């Protein structure tokens, strides 16, 4: 019988400690529930580690507690459309304008920019290295039928890729060389690296992961490859449950001079170059 008593005792102990953690969270914060701010964000800000720097700084300044959910821009806006997020950090300008136009979001502001690049194996079987036009580079890849790895997840990067294919006049979907992963940027870069294929990536994620990849930057500098990140607050007028004060506070923080300075220097020490460039105050 002793084992029964012991195990019931142990289970009760786990239950008590476990339950305390369900109610207060492991950080044992005494803040009320509305202190939580749900940030739906693109994967690049997360995979590069930028949010690991910005979020604690914001939390310290304001007392809010941020829950960053790293998904593609498309899914981030889908969460916004359900009122499941309070503020979005995304990079898919066309979809963002629609998101604001339909009343789901308010106060869309520029935060930072970098650029997309086409990366591929050093051997470059499609011969695109140094090409000036991203869409004609894609045309060469399609012509050679070399592996191209696509995010295919409605992320900002995927949306950009689709527009570049459209400009090239090729419809790659269904082609045997067109590989669709449905994964975030980091994992997609791994697939491209292992398969010896090409892919479109934001420069920041590529720089952060470069050491583990067998990929080179082959096409860059095309105006079509510009990549701008916006913050959008989810409209409390449409979704009364959102933490609008928290969302607004985080948005104001992102465009504040203090945060912009962190963005300007982020990554220089580790990668030798900045991963993002501050862009607050500029308009489209």
């Amino acid at each position, binding site marked *: 019988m002793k084992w029964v008593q012991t195990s019931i005792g142990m289970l009760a102990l786990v239950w008590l400690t476990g339950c305390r953690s369900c109610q207060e969270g492991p950080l044992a914060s005494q803040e009320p529930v509305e202190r939580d701010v749900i940030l739906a964000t693109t994967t690049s800000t997360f995979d590069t580690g930028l949010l690991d720097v910005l979020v604690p700084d914001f939390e310290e300044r304001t007392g809010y507690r941020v829950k960053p959910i790293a998904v593609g821009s498309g899914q981030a806006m889908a969460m916004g459309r359900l009122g*499941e997020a309070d503020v979005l950090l995304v990079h898919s300008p066309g979809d963002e304008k629609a998101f604001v136009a339909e009343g789901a979001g308010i106060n869309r502001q520029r935060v930072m920019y970098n650029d997309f690049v086409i990366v591929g194996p050093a051997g470059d079987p499609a011969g695109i290295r140094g090409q000036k036009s991203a869409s004609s580079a894609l045309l060469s890849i399609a012509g050679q039928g070399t592996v191209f790895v696509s995010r295919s997840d409605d992320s900002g990067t995927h949306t950009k890729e689709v527009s570049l294919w459209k400009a090239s006049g090729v419809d790659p979907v269904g082609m045997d060389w067109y590989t669709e992963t449905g994964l975030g940027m980091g994992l997609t870069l791994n697939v491209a690296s292992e398969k010896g294929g090409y892919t479109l990536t934001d420069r920041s994620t590529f720089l952060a992961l470069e050491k*583990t990849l067998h990929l080179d930057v082959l096409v860059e500098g095309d105006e079509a490859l510009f990549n701008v990140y916006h913050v959008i607050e989810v409209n409390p007028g449409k979704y009364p449950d959102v933490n609008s004060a928290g969302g607004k506070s985080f948005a104001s923080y992102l465009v504040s001079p203090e945060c912009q300075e962190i963005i300007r220097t982020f990554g220089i020490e580790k990668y030798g170059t900045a991963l993002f460039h501050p862009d607050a105050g500029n308009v489209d």
Partner: protein
Amino acid sequence: MDLILEGIVKAFTLIVGLDAEVVRVTMLSLAISGTATMVAVILGVTAGTWLALNRFPGREALVGLVNTAMGLPPVVVGLFVALMLWRSGPLGSLGIIYTPAAMVVAQAVLAFPIVTGITLAAIQQIPPGFRLQVLALGATRTQMVWVLVREARLLLLAAVMAGFGGAVSEIGASLMVGGNIKGQTRILTTSIVMETSRGNFDVAIALGIVLFLVAMAITVLLTRVQQRERKR
């Protein structure tokens, strides 16, 4: 090859050095999966025993359902629990989405059919004659159930191990309802995926080793209890 070696070296330094983040992630994994297993054991042993001892129309179908649910895909559970707990969902007012509580719910839902199914099998493998004998000796129904559960205890411990194993190694549901938030809902499995996507394979390998050791330690502990019990 270098990568694997580097990973193992890194794992060693992180584990031996009791790296704060590794410790926190490990403790949270244990707390969440431990609580979920306990909930699943309380409900699952009850449900399994009840199913084993009662006969009613539709029982076959219910047993089939439990056995099927033993292999519930974690992502489907995650999706279902997330839809329930979202602000717009029926249980949204609880405000527990992206908290450890939500992860306990999801993992308990996963472990519950496993515990129920094994309990059902454990109680049913006791010969019906034994039950009649206990009742004939004047036991009340409650006493009889208690004797049966005691009789099946070795298999019930197996149910606990299987339930815990399912909970602690699961990722899809925990990621969907927890969000892998640093310091709040980041556990071993979700960290491994994140570190892999960030190209930090050495840390991912280290966490993988920790997860393996944790699962093994719990199983060894329960196995020892089980085997000591058998000798008596």
